[in-house]
């Protein structure tokens, strides 16, 4: 599986994402700088975590307006599997590829810890490797992970099965404890927890690995 990691000024989980992809897919991803207008064809696009543009103004706001995002949006809309983690999720909502917005945590503090997630859907390209009804542990590390959307949007997300992960308990005030959602087509996943930090026992577990493996299996 050939993948790309998009790098913005202030991304800081780009290396972690690249390492995870290399370890899991056996192939080094290409690193794409935010000023690129185009990049070679890939099977998978990852928008990593971090503090692009220092989280200034709003998390992800400035990155969402970068050159490279126009291309990413085009490919995502054309069906290329795309994963946005943490800041990557924020960028995806800022571009409108995913609905809603990520607001300041209700506790107002940055929160970094392992959290338990319920896998809401096992039939997406990202989650097919998880057993039915399984709870997983993946760390979060964010200041603005409090998912917000209006009631209609939330009902629609639930109705269309776009909610991929929920927090097992309240972490940041997110509406309906939403931790990760997909687009309608199911090829774009945005999530606050960091699966790339949970890919091997020394880091505390490997539940995060399955997301990448699921995509890999789907792509064959």
């Amino acid at each position: 599986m050939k993948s790309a990691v998009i790098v913005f000024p202030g991304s800081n989980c780009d290396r972690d994402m690249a390492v995870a992809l290399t370890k899991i897919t056996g192939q080094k991803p290409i690193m794409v700088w935010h000023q690129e207008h185009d990049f070679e064809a890939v099977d998978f696009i990852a928008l990593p975590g971090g503090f692009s543009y220092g989280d200034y103004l709003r998390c992800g706001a400035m990155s969402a307006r970068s050159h490279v995002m126009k291309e990413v949006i085009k490919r995502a809309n054309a069906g290329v599997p795309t994963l946005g983690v943490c800041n990557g999720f924020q960028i995806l909502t800022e571009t409108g590829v995913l609905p809603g917005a990520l607001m300041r945590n209700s506790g107002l503090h940055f929160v970094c810890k392992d959290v338990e997630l319920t896998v809401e859907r096992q039939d997406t390209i990202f989650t097919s490797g998880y057993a039915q009804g399984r709870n997983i542990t993946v760390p979060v590390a964010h200041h603005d992970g409090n998912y917000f959307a209006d009631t209609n949007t939330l009902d629609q997300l639930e109705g269309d099965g776009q909610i991929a992960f929920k927090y097992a308990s309240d972490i940041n005030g997110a509406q309906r404890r939403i931790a990760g959602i997909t687009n309608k087509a199911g090829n774009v996943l945005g999530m606050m927890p960091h699966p790339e930090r949970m890919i091997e026992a020394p880091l505390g577990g490997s539940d995060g690995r399955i997301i990448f493996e699921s995509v890999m299996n789907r792509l064959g």
Partner: protein
Amino acid sequence: MLARIHVTLKNGVLDPQGKAIENTLQNMGFSGIDAARQGKYIELDLAETDRAKAEAHVDDMCRKLIANTVIENYSFTLE
């Protein structure tokens, strides 16, 4: 010209920061605060001197970057 832009959360959008200010003020012994809301205030110094042009310009910047219209409203004045 100077544009003064106010960005506020839309009605119905939860405002954790406003809520926190409200609670903290209460804990500090300030009473009689019915609600607190936190927004942003942005000033832009513009080279443009034509008011109508500046207005269109700033509106565009607000829609495209400064406010996230999914959750926020904006308004501005020019002087």
